[in-house]
């Protein structure tokens, strides 16, 4: 989100195009380097510098030891400059593809993108990738800085050719302002003053161009309040805390609570340590309402209920920011404005290509991919499309296992599909069914690496339950693969789908009143969490069969370990390599320490309170 008195600028581009040197140069020319910092820079330049006798300004930006030693930028450096009555915030970002997630981080809060291009090398893959990222994250304006112009001897003709190429790739995007400026960061040409060596260039120098763009007025949005926190000190009256946007909302105004569409009035408004008569644009406020309704974190309070949409099926664009990849069928957490809920990715529709043309089955998006997806949310959410109100359409997707940010995204539109599928209410309930056979249905989920003893334990457990006349069903993942999951292979995305189906089938069976035992490696925490989320409390138990790998290898019932020694390409997770150890299982057992019989008895005692 861009602000009038701060201009946030991201510098990006390919490796060695001179990003850090440029920002360092700007700091120096605007007198923003203190004497002790300059002394430190002299020492660093001698030790790590790549600019011979000149100061290596990049070392001002590359503040981490690893960065200096490897001569690369790993993460964003933020630098603050006061210049011509403006606060300029430069976000210097890395060029290596490996650190693209940090470019996305920097770009998301900027209004101007400066993409550096090496005059001699021209447009590279990273150049177009970064342009797409600027467009994706909502950066409104782009300046191409053609750097190292001295290396092509300030030649107008060569610059003109490059300019034409840049204009071609610009065509695909609708930025508000687009400029192309020839510069030399090292020799200080066209940075803070017009270069005398390029009289043929008629435009502004880089900093003046940035100031000119950044001084444009911002459009203000429709009025609404995002609810950030419901504060109830000493069990007294509730205070709804949140950010007010758009035109001021007055005290006593009627407001709509979205997505519930409940109606109430604002009674008191507080901010700036005072009671106030109306809200302030872009300022955090605290309000009381006339009647206490169910208003929670993640709701939107709107003056006009038609300005905010609600939904639970969406079409969205995403960029992947983690090695964990994004899988169709997997459940994740989503954060959109202040709302958090679970989502399931229902479809991966498209993947944007940056030249490496490998058309693949769209079941997953890999790190740095930009793509189009569809997803369902557990809760109904209040939102707007990203293009209309950025703040209400931007979201992040979080892995439920390791809590990494897997993807950043923006909502394009809500899908109406959800409106057409009605959940039929059935009159015979789960309780009716299970009462008939006098048992409490449960799902016992056995997880562990190949050869750990899941199937043997599952068998023993089922026998015991059957013996005391309980209706059971044992789902062994290997057997399911011969039937309903016949179409699935062993790729990561197929493994996700394999477990999703087993979990859903178990749920149906528990609904039918049956005690279900599942034996599946289920290597990923996300899918095990998903399985758990399908059931009520005290209905699902995750049991981790923690048998040491050496023992599993020695047993090697299926001969998989032997096979893998011969065939290096064999799927590793089939063996349980890459298995994510359960963090909070309901029970951990090991066949090394206990017999199968003892384990089955322990499960009976613990979860069925009988033996």
């Amino acid at each position: 989100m861009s602000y009038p008195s701060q201009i946030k600028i991201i510098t990006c581009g390919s490796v060695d195009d001179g990003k850090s040197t440029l920002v360092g140069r700007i700091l120096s020319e605007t007198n923003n380097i203190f004497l002790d910092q300059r002394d430190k820079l002299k020492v660093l330049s001698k030790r790590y510098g790549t600019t011979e006798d000149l100061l290596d300004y990049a070392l001002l930006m590359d503040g981490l030891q690893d960065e200096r030693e490897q001569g690369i930028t790993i993460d964003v450096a933020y630098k603050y400059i006061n210049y011509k009555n403006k606060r300029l915030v430069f976000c210097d970002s890395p060029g290596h593809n490996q650190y693209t997630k940090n470019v996305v981080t920097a770009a998301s809060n900027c209004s101007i993108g400066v993409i550096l291009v090496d005059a001699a090398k021209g447009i590279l893959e990273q150049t177009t990738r970064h342009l797409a990222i600027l467009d994706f994250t909502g950066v409104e304006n782009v300046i191409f800085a053609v750097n190292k112009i001295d290396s092509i001897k300030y030649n107008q003709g060569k610059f003109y050719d490059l300019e034409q190429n840049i204009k071609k790739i610009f065509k695909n995007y609708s930025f508000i302002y687009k400029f192309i400026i020839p510069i030399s960061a090292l020799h200080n040409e066209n940075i803070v003053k017009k270069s005398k060596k390029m009289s043929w260039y008629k435009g502004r120098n880089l900093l003046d161009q940035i100031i000119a763009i950044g001084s444009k007025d911002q459009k203000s949005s429709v009025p609404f309040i995002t609810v950030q926190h419901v504060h109830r000190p000493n069990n007294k009256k509730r205070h709804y805390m949140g950010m007010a946007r758009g035109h001021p909302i007055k005290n006593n105004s009627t407001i709509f609570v979205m997505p519930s569409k409940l109606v109430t009035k604002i009674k008191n408004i507080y901010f700036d340590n005072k009671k106030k008569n109306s809200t302030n644009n872009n300022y955090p406020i605290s309000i009381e309402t006339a009647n206490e309704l169910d208003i929670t974190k993640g709701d939107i309070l709107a003056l006009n209920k038609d300005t905010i949409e609600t939904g639970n099926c969406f079409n969205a664009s995403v960029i992947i920011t983690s090695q964990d990849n994004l899988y169709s069928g997997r459940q994740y957490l989503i954060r959109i404005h202040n709302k958090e809920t679970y989502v399931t990715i229902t479809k991966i529709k498209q993947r944007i290509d940056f030249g490496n043309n490998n058309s693949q089955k769209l079941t997953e998006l890999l790190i740095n991919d930009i793509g189009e997806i569809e997803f369902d949310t557990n809760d109904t959410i209040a939102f707007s499309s990203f293009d209309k109100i950025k703040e209400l359409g931007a979201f992040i997707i979080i892995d439920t296992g390791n809590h990494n940010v897997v993807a950043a995204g923006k909502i394009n539109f809500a899908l109406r599909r959800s409106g057409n599928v009605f959940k039929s209410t059935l009159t015979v309930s789960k309780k009716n069914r299970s009462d008939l056979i006098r048992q409490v249905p449960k799902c016992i989920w056995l997880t562990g690496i190949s050869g750990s003893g899941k199937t043997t334990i599952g068998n023993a457990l089922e026998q015991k339950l059957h013996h005391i006349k309980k209706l059971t069903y044992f789902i062994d993942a290997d057997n399911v693969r011969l039937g309903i999951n016949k179409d699935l292979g062993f790729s990561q995305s197929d493994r996700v789908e394999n477990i999703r189906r087993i979990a859903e089938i178990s749920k149906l069976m528990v609904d039918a009143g049956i005690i279900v035992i599942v034996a599946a490696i289920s290597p990923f925490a996300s899918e095990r969490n998903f399985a758990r989320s399908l059931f009520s409390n005290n209905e699902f138990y995750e049991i981790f069969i923690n048998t040491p790998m050496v023992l599993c290898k020695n047993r090697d019932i299926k001969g998989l370990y032997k096979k893998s020694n011969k065939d290096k390409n064999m799927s590793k997770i089939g063996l349980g390599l890459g298995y994510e150890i359960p963090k909070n299982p309901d029970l951990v057992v090991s066949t090394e320490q206990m017999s199968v019989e003892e384990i089955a008895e322990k499960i009976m005692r613990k979860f069925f309170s009988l033996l």
Partner: protein
Amino acid sequence: LRNNSLLKELESEAISIIRDGFSRSLNPVLMYSIGKDSSVLLHLAIKAFYPSPVPFPLLHIDTTWKFKEMYAFKQKVKKKLKVNIITYTNFSGLQKKIDPINNSSLHTDIMKTEALKQAIDLHKFDFIFGGARRDEEQSRSKERIVSLREKAHSWDPRNQRPELWSLFNFHKNQDQTFRVFPISNWTESDVWGYILKENIKIVDLYFAKKRPVVNRDGAFFLVDDSRFTLKKNEKISLKSVRFRTLGCYPLTAGIESKAANLKEIIKENKKIIFSERAGRLIDLDKINSMEIKKKHGYF
């Protein structure tokens, strides 16, 4: 600079971060060092929850070597603002008698970094709000606003999580913690401007006054108590000095100045050619000493 609107934006961002973090935490705490940045952070926390009181305690890591005026100021704040201040000292470290005069970096390790980690573990704080700013130092300029710390409070700068828009990710595993920095995007001049605008009370040491000091290569150290030992040929003289940052008194140098009020300080700061932390000896041990400290759990 259109100062007021800039300060409004920075204030708005900071309050929003404080509320967001608070609403997703179980046991939050605000790091309170008694310095100007802490004072600003506390002021923002008060504003964030008005008309309710600040709903979390403050944590002061006491090395026992702070300036006397800082201790007096802390008592005043406690009384006047009615906040709960938890004071923690690493007593086992104290018994080792490592003083900051002869052993500055070990003292910082044990009495600041270790002490902070012990206090967090003892009270099981999960979200720790701090007043660190990105413009202070090179490794801080690389840090996220919501900074994930691993089991032993370590920071892995090579592998920071993406942080997009203002959609902070406050999910973590049980043994991890968050350091949350609401004033990351403020500069030294913003802090001074805000103190002036909001009339925030700060320790008197920030204002120039005649004080008994020892001159060490142009850096002026305050002779604050009898533990201060003079080197050969050193003399105590009365000089008008002020401090740009406050820490342990033998490790924090003042500058010669006549700026006795906020307006004069702001005016004078514009002309100063040294950075804010140039007077902090603990930053100068090694070229990347702050990064090393942060990796080990310093805030």
